[in-house]
């Protein structure tokens, strides 16, 4: 199409693609992101280790949720199989970095970049293997078939005790060693929790930026096209099979990475961890955060990770609840009920999720000196 490129007086449109298509294309976005990064970097010196560990776990969950969001939120393929891919990553990472002489399989490769990448790749490989079945299915069929993966995976992990340690016994998680420094051990300057928090934060930023790049690229647009109207997408030249498989591969890669890191904070995991509930939690993260946005996935992951802690704190301000373990409604049952109630209420009030709330807040401030 060859038409003169400078008709009419709209100079900014033609000089600003680069800026318009930039990563953080507005001033408020840059200001917010910068502010959040500073807060995140200051936090480990402000709050206690138990909260840091929780946040570190939340950051890892966010990496996993971003992955699920790519296949589910962007490409529209609802997967309940995320726990399976998390497990693949967790066992790849743990086996590669575990001691060679231990009770369970280990290769002694403790360098974090190596086992982390390997975990992602192995999980992605499984994603690609599964995809040919998955691309033929839609909606709930796909959801339940991927759920089948979780059950079959659980069976394999239960049986393969030399890898997993067996149910109820388990094995140590991956060993986080970076340039010869064990990050899961206190050293003179930082506690283990501080180090792991910072590690997970940096990794989240890296994987978040990469994912953001992907979804604003032609690949990301193709995912969205497949999600919104797959037949129309194919008619304009998007190879449905290729992009569905790609979405599964990328999603599984993220799941593998997250899985390898997920239990590093805990240091220990067993095959029972990778069940339907875990998959459902990740779906909840994506939906509560807001499907189809990277920041939504992060918010959702933090929300779901912190929710149990919040529900543990809430009853302490309600004086009529006793701390007894018995009784018709104990404080512990109240916590469990609150978890369910908060999810219900939240989704009824704001079905577009935390990202929806954020958009509303942002729109409210639109007239603020920062013009959006």
């Amino acid at each position, binding site marked *: 199409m060859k038409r003169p490129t400078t008709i009419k007086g709209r100079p900014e449109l033609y000089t600003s693609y680069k800026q318009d298509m930039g990563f953080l294309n507005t001033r408020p976005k840059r200001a917010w992101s910068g502010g959040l990064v500073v807060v995140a970097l200051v936090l480990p010196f402000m709050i206690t280790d138990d909260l840091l560990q929780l946040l570190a776990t939340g950051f890892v969950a966010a990496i996993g949720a971003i992955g699920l969001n790519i296949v589910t939120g962007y490409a529209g393929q609802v997967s309940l199989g995320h726990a399976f891919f998390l497990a693949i990553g967790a066992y790849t990472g743990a086996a590669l970095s575990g001691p060679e002489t231990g009770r369970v399989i280990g290769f002694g490769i403790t360098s974090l970049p190596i086992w982390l990448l390997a975990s992602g790749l192995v999980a992605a490989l499984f994603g690609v293997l599964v995809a040919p079945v998955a691309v033929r299915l839609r909606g709930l069929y796909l959801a339940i078939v991927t759920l089948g993966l979780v059950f079959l995976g659980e069976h394999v992990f239960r049986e393969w005790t030399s890898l997993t340690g067996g149910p109820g016994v388990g094995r140590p998680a991956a060993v986080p060693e970076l340039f010869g420094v064990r990050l899961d051990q206190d050293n003179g300057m930082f506690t283990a929790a501080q180090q792991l928090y910072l590690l997970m934060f940096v990794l989240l930023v890296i994987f978040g930026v990469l994912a953001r790049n992907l979804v604003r690229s032609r690949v990301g647009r193709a995912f969205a096209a497949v999600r919104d109207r797959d037949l129309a997408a194919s008619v304009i030249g998007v190879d449905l099979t290729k992009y569905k498989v790609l979405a599964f591969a990328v999603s599984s890669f993220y799941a593998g990475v997250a899985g390898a890191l997920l239990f590093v904070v805990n240091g220990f995991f067993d095959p029972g961890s990778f069940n339907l509930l875990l998959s459902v939690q990740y779906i909840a993260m994506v939906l509560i955060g807001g499907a189809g946005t990277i920041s939504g996935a992060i918010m959702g992951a933090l929300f779901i990770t912190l929710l149990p802690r919040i529900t543990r704190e809430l009853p302490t301000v309600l004086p009529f609840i006793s701390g007894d373990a018995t009784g018709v*409604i104990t404080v512990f049952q109240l916590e469990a009920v609150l978890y369910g109630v908060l999810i219900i209420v939240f989704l009824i009030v704001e079905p577009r999720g935390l990202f929806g709330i954020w958009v509303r807040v942002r729109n409210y401030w639109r007239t603020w000196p920062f013009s959006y």
Partner: protein
Amino acid sequence: MDEFLQSLIRGLGTGSIYSLLALGFVIIYKSTQVISFAQPAFMLAGAVLVSYLSPAVSFVGAVLVAAVVIAVLALGVERTVLRPMVGKPVFVVAIITIGVDVVVRVVTNAFIGLDVRQVGDPWGLNTVNFLGAEVQQRYLVMIATTAVVTVALFAFFRYSRIGLAMRAVAYDQEVALAQGISVGSVFALSWALAGGLAALAGVFVATGAGVDQQLWIVALKALPAIILGGLESLGGAVVGGLAVGVVESLFGTYQGDFAPWLGSNFGLVAPYALMLLVLLVRPYGLFGKKEVERL
């Protein structure tokens, strides 16, 4: 041969439990396009309720009362929690049903107490000679009950006014609405029916040893069943449930001898393997219909 027949009937017995559960899932799915993850909680609640009622009003009375009470409970949940979500993305609604499941199950657990509770059924573990094989009476009762329930449901959907309305809604919500059918009532009724079916299934599970708080896990077996049968097909749900039960049972009996390399208890995941195989050939399940895409 006895061994095979026994295994088969056990499979059909537990399979009929899965069928009842699967019917509930499919009824809700057909009218609302949502998979209700609250079904496990209703199932547990039904069994617990029967354990409280049966000493007072006899087992059969307790089952009937419990099925109605759980149906009303499910209907209430639909009216209060799910109603505001009509028209919202189905997966968001599905997550809400998980919230419902947590709440109902935790409250129900509080009523189980420390001891395993009994539902007080008259069959116990008594056996009867059936075609030359000793089979437990309760399995035959389960199979018969499921058959009766299935026939009743089919008659209901075919001949009753409200049943026809439900089918209309399942076929096309907007057209049904235009025909003056109250789609809201259909949603509520489908939840009620599914709740009642879940309660019945819960009681059957508990006939062997009693009610403990892990009972709800059985409900997950309905998931491969509905996929095998096809999400939109009531008949498929019944067949899928029976297939899952039989596959599980036969694998339990024979896999150890014929394919030990599959690992112990492979029978419990065999339905999922079967489901994957079926979907490779038929992506819409055995009885599901392929949608024709229109541009």
